[in-house]
């Protein structure tokens, strides 16, 4: 069976997005870091710094602990693959993503969970105190953040009567402009989840190696060279994916509808300021908040969970 030209076009577009996200993700991280530097009155290393770091890490020889197992070795690749895939199936430019049909929002949460499971297991593999502490804390943060994210996505699915990302985006982008009260609660919850899942202040701090505060960094302490590079790149992709989800749910205006290839340039032109705005907002949020004690984190995330459930309940009550 020959696929229709429309389908071929969609597949080409899907592959383009796959390539685009993997190349653009470090840029977003660089932008967030640069914004942070400006907010702290530093001049910063420039938005291209993450690429330089990745290149440096890839060239180095990898060093692995004597008792590292195969699980430790394959984890960076699996985590990178999962995050790459997650970032590639979220519609941010056009809703025509054929692969989104194979993995809906629940599967998307599943991809994040799969990557997290592997990285937590790898952290325990060497058997250092830091590794297992990081794994424990990561699972602690995620067992509240993951259902909160699921509830946020469910609110959007309820509004659009679908768990498919393209359908959600189309429904949200092309409705007559009203503010959904349920989505407002969901947006608040989503921001908290984004901060927690991407190891940002106030839950975690990506720039620290301080024993008392590490979560994500504690898990990846034993990685070096190309393995570390892949994990760093995967973190960039994860941030990109989360910000994409945010754009797809709460700022979907301008994303080209299915079959609307003429809208593509405009969608692309709109995406860049959206991403820049989101990155700057993230840097600002981090600049004005302080890292909290680890046992405050469950309360913080519990708030997100309750907000998300509240959003869903409001949708059930008001139908909006």
């Amino acid at each position: 069976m020959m696929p229709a030209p429309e389908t071929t076009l969609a597949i080409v577009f899907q592959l383009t997005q796959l390539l685009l996200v993997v190349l653009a993700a470090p840029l977003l991280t660089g932008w967030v870091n640069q914004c942070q530097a400006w907010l702290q009155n530093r001049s910063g290393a420039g938005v291209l710094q993450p690429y330089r770091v990745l290149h440096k890490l890839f060239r180095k020889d990898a060093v692995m602990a004597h008792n590292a197992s195969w699980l430790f070795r394959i984890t960076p690749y699996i985590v990178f693959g999962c995050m790459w895939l997650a970032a590639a199936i979220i519609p941010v430019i056009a809703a025509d993503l054929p692969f989104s049909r194979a993995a809906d929002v629940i599967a998307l949460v599943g991809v994040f969970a799969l990557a997290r499971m592997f990285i937590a297991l790898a952290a325990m593999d060497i058997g250092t105190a830091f590794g297992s502490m990081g794994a424990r804390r990561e699972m602690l943060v995620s067992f509240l953040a993951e259902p909160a994210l699921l509830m946020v996505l469910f609110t959007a699915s309820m509004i659009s009567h679908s768990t498919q990302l393209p359908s959600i985006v189309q429904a949200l982008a092309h409705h007559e402009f009203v503010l959904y009260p349920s989505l407002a609660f969901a947006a608040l919850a989503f921001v908290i989840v984004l901060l927690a899942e991407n190891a940002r202040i106030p839950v975690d701090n990506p720039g620290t190696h301080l024993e008392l505060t590490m979560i994500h960094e504690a898990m990846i302490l034993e990685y070096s060279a190309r393995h570390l590079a892949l994990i760093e790149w995967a973190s960039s992709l994860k941030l990109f994916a989360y910000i994409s989800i945010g754009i797809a749910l709460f700022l979907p205006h301008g994303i080209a509808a299915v079959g609307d290839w003429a809208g593509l340039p405009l969608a692309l032109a709109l995406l860049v300021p959206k991403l820049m705005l989101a990155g700057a907002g993230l840097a600002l949020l981090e600049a004005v908040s302080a890292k909290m004690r680890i046992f405050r984190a469950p309360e913080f995330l519990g708030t997100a969970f309750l907000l998300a459930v509240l959003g869903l309940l409001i949708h059930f009550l008001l139908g909006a």
Partner: protein
Amino acid sequence: MNGVILSWIMLGAVGLWRRDTRLITRILFPLGALASLSLAVAGFMALGSAAQTLVLPLGLPELPFHQRLDALSAFFLILLGVASTGVSLYAGGYFRHMEGKTLGLLCLEYHVFLAGMTLVLLADDAYLFMVAWEMMALSSYFLVTTDHAVPDIRKAGFLYLLVAHVGAIAILLCFGVMQGGNGIAAYTFDAMRAAPLTPFWASAAFLLALFGFGAKAGVLPLHVWLPEAHPAAPSPVSALMSGVMLKTAIYGILRVSFDLLPLQLWWWGVLALGLGLATAVFGVMFAAVQGDMKRLLAYSSIENIGLLLVGIGLTLIFHVYGKDTLAALALAATLYHSLNHAMFKSLLFVGTGSILHATGERNMGRLGGLIHRMPWASVLMLVGVLAIAGLPPLNGFVSEWLLLQAFLLSPGLSNNYINMLVPVAAAVIALAAALAAYVMVKFYGVIFLGQRRDPGLAHAHDAGRMERTGMVWLALACVALGLFPVFVLGQIDHVAQSLLGTRLGNASADWMFLAPVDTDRASYSPLYFLLAVAGVTGLSVLLVHRLYHGRLRRGAAWDCGFPAQTARMQDSAEGFGQPIRRIFEPFFRIEREVPGALDTRPKYHGRSDDKLWFLLYLPLRDLTEKLSGWVSLLQHGRIHLYLTYTFATLVVLLIFV
């Protein structure tokens, strides 16, 4: 079917008669596995065809044994057959060090247990059902108490027997209610189906069934026997009990509420949903703080039973409100999850058996680093762990996906209170699923990863050939159930057709895509998913090695430059569960002994217990003892006093009549 039952009983009898270790483990158990496989095949053939009935010339004079093989029985027979094939193969390897009378008896009890479960699924009258139910309960009791020299195991066995019989009484009463006092012939299920019941008596029957079968399944607050009996039993037996026997209780609830009872009420569904949610969260919370690997798995079974009960509750609610497609979806999620749980929980339980053989240790706090010594077991257990954590593309994810879809499609019921309950329930399910991932990271990480917590673990050996075969079979089942959901759902549809009169169907024409209601609403394709993940992962491996290099050196662990590292610095099982214990502190009964700063001999001790045991069971025991104390006032052991009692009773009766 009956041929399989007979051959199992014969295998058991031969085992008891010959008592030869090689014969039993090399021939009888594999033959039993073959019988299991043929049972699964027979069940598969029967699934699509019309119900077959059979009346055996056995049983009571006026009530011979009735058997019936319909879609629901056939589905659970497949579950039993596939799971027990793997477990029996494994058992052939696992019991190779046992000998003599113990092994002979065990072989008999094991196969009678399998036969009992098959008969439960086939029974079509209350008498045969109860006989089979008792056969299953007693044989499993003897299997649990295989090591009866250990006092704790005897205690666990007694608790199991007690709860099983309290449950059995409730089931018997349930049949009595449904039979409606119409003579002995009305004890066939056919007569019960035809009996007119008022909503009051139907509710009574449902509540009795929920209590009776709930006791067998481990529904809150009747779960107490599970974490005691599962660790006590030999691992293949735990696998069968947790993977298959609990499902016979689910079968019972489904059979009574959708087939035997003529009507359903909405509040039954709400009750089942609420109980299921409480059971799921409770189970996973307690699993997170366990230190014994089999206890952890037992609590995880409680969680899964909770999820199944949630599915049953949803099915009931949708069915009552006339949304039969949604009811079919919720039922499909329930049945799919039963099948999944049978596979991955059996796999994990037999895996703990291999660990137990290799190390002699059930306490996770003395294990660690086994991934280096047990390559087969570690890979196969990883499959089970990923499956039970509900991660794509394995099977646990599919049933979770279906259940969440059922929740998402629910708005529009005419009862507003239920409409509000649904999102909260979905949130609780999501929370339980996320906590399950926590539990499984702990389970796998503490046992298989890290440094060895005990130097003796350096001599641990991998699972033997037969054990491996059984585990590979179960792991393959997990993978297949995860990758081909459209095919599995097509089979489950026969059950939905026979119980609810509706098919779910697949909205997508493409067999690769699972789309239960509408392709625009939701679809999921595990094969494409796997291909994509494997594709991008493979691509990244290739690119990294092509563009750069693949050089690797080994060195000491860095650990932030901290020089001394011992195995005791890793998280213990208790340590890993500590955050959960702290967050959910009100639910636990915690005993702690922490040394002061100046203790020269510091001693740490921590223990988290089930509060329900102290709030419900111990008062109940005290009450029972008090009541029996009063009754014993009547007992004097003198015959003339008893004759006086009889005379007084007679006089009282005569006055009334």
